[in-house]
């Protein structure tokens, strides 16, 4: 698990360090830098995997960008010789008490190369350096190839440094979209168990349901997911031709199958195309939490998309339980704009963390953890909620764009 993430000179993140828990929720105004934070970790993921090209970034859900936009461009005091100073590289670091991986990458502003070049690279287990790269290293290794990824094959699977690297390598950012979840829009980044936009969800649901008999945890997640879809009696997977579906919507061979609890038998079967989008997002997150192939470290951008506020709150509460009780330790980063998500977070559990993300007067992203103390608990006794305090601006951190 990553307990500390540092990003420097990347877009609006001039220098940001975040101490992460198992579930990490980032809330802030549009444009405050929430997605930049997720993407910074995505770039580190690509670097840990050995190469940082547009393709590597896209596979992780990171929007590729030209160096002129990736590198922070905040005005800085001029250098002693009067020349304009600007950061020459972007820097990322992630680690825990046992290991750390950090990298600085460069790509010229003019005529950028397809691959970012490693300027520094450091991979440590405790105080022992496994990989160290600097511009002075001789002979100069291939600057477009990460050294940690090369060394990784020589390490034991139990090595904490390798576990950290593997977690980083597997990191992706999911941005589920309703069209893809419904099966009427193509998935641009397919992967197992679900694509970055939610593609292949019907198959992932089938696999998850199939695993219920082997795992009480998966069984619990599946049941609780159903409890959040109040109109459905059951859900599953079916070939598209086996249930009523408009030919115009039959874009994929398999669909999600719901049984409506209110309609009469034989008229109560509908597909994901016709279901409420909230139900699809619930199942998407349930698959992420329960499927054995879902990444141990991932992010979901706009996790509240398409959700009724009360459902967003209930889903968040369940999602925290699903992740915290998972037999396979998993770590999740989420961004949200929905205040009621805050009310579903068990923040008195250290493993669940809420961060406000905002911009300072000079535009730099500032990230701050919201901790719960007695004074806030007392607010609850008086009937106040965290969501309401946030909307009022009392939690700081860039209240909505007003």
């Amino acid at each position, binding site marked *: 698990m990553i307990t500390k993430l540092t990003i420097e000179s990347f877009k609006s993140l*001039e*220098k*940001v360090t975040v101490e992460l828990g198992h579930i990490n929720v980032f809330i802030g105004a549009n444009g405050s830098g929430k997605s930049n934070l997720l993407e910074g970790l995505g770039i580190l993921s690509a670097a840990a995997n050995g190469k940082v090209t547009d393709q590597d970034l896209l596979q992780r859900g990171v929007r590729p960008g030209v160096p002129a936009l990736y590198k922070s461009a905040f005005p800085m005091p001029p250098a002693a010789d009067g020349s304009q100073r600007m950061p020459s590289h972007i820097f990322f670091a992630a680690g825990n008490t046992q290991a750390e991986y950090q990298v600085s990458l460069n790509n010229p502003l003019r005529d950028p190369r397809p691959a970012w070049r490693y300027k520094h690279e450091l991979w440590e287990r405790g105080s022992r350096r496994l990989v160290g790269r600097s511009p002075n290293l001789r002979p100069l290794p291939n600057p477009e190839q990460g050294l940690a990824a090369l060394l990784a094959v020589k390490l034991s699977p139990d090595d904490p440094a390798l576990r950290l690297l593997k977690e980083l390598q597997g990191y992706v950012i999911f941005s589920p979209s309703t069209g893809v979840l419904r099966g009427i829009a193509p998935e641009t980044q397919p992967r197992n168990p679900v694509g970055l936009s939610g593609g292949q969800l019907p198959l992932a649901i089938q696999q998850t349901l199939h695993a219920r008999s082997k795992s009480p945890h998966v069984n619990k997640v599946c049941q609780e997911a159903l409890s959040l879809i109040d109109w459905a009696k059951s859900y599953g997977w079916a070939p598209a031709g086996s249930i009523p579906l408009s030919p115009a919507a039959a874009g994929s061979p398999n669909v999600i199958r719901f049984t409506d609890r209110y309609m009469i038998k034989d008229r109560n079967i509908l597909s994901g195309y016709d279901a409420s989008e909230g139900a699809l997002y619930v199942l998407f997150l349930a698959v992420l939490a329960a499927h054995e192939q879902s990444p141990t470290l991932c992010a979901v951008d706009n996790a509240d998309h398409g959700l009724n506020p009360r459902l967003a709150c209930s889903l968040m509460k369940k999602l925290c339980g699903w992740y915290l009780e998972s037999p396979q330790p998993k770590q999740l980063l989420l961004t949200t704009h929905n205040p009621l998500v805050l009310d579903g977070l068990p923040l008195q559990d250290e493993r669940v963390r809420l961060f*406000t993300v*905002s*911009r*300072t*007067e*000079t535009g*730099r992203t*500032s990230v*701050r953890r*919201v901790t719960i*103390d*007695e*004074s*806030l608990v*007392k*607010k609850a006794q*008086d009937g*106040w909620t965290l969501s*309401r*305090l946030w*909307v*009022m*601006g*009392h*939690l*700081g*951190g*860039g*209240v909505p764009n*007003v």
Partner: protein
Amino acid sequence: MSEPLRIALAVEGDTDLIVIKAAIASLLLGREVEFTTLQPEHSLAFGILGGDTGMGWSGVYRWCRQTASEGGGRVSGSALFKFHDILIVHIDGDVAGMTYESANIEETILDLPCKQPCPPASATAAELRKVVLRWMGENATPVRCVLCTPCMNMEAWVIIALFPTNSIFQRKGPEGWECHENPEGQLGQLPVSVRIRKTKSHYEGRKTEIAAAWPSVCAASSEARRFSTDFHTVHGVAHATKTSATGGAPTSAPSP
């Protein structure tokens, strides 16, 4: 980036916010600041009763009442002090001449109007501050709070900052701009080529000039001086509080 100073502001309007930010930029000399603009909760659907009056002074009133409620009867008990270093509450001095009824506020304690003879402007400001403190449920200004009461309104500070030598504005007498009834109207009399309209974009475009001229504003305005002094005092308290990481904001006046 060092930890930014977090300042929450309840202000009457967008242009007032820009002037206060400019003043703070001058007072803090480049320190990174993060502002949170506070507004009362309201629903357009409920019309005037829902607070559909924009912000204005009645918005500041409603914000004070809501936040005092959240704080268990006083603003200093609010959660906002856990997440902010300083709270600034702004109200223009000319509010001292208003009535609650004019803003569709049902109040049992009719401490408005409270206008005093001017000069000195500080007499009206002092009365108005007592009124605002009552709205906040406080007997004295909370330790990490600054009351900003430009007299008679924020445009007086803008005139002093941006047009120090303009002959149209030169006023005789000791009272200066602080006792002028309608500085905004004076701004409107400027030739179009130099006129500054009371819009967010116009004020934003002159923010740097206002910040640069802030010492001159303080020299010519007792309430600007008071704001600067109180802000420096509270900034020192906030810095000390931050290092000791306490939560609430105990109530006692940093200055009269």
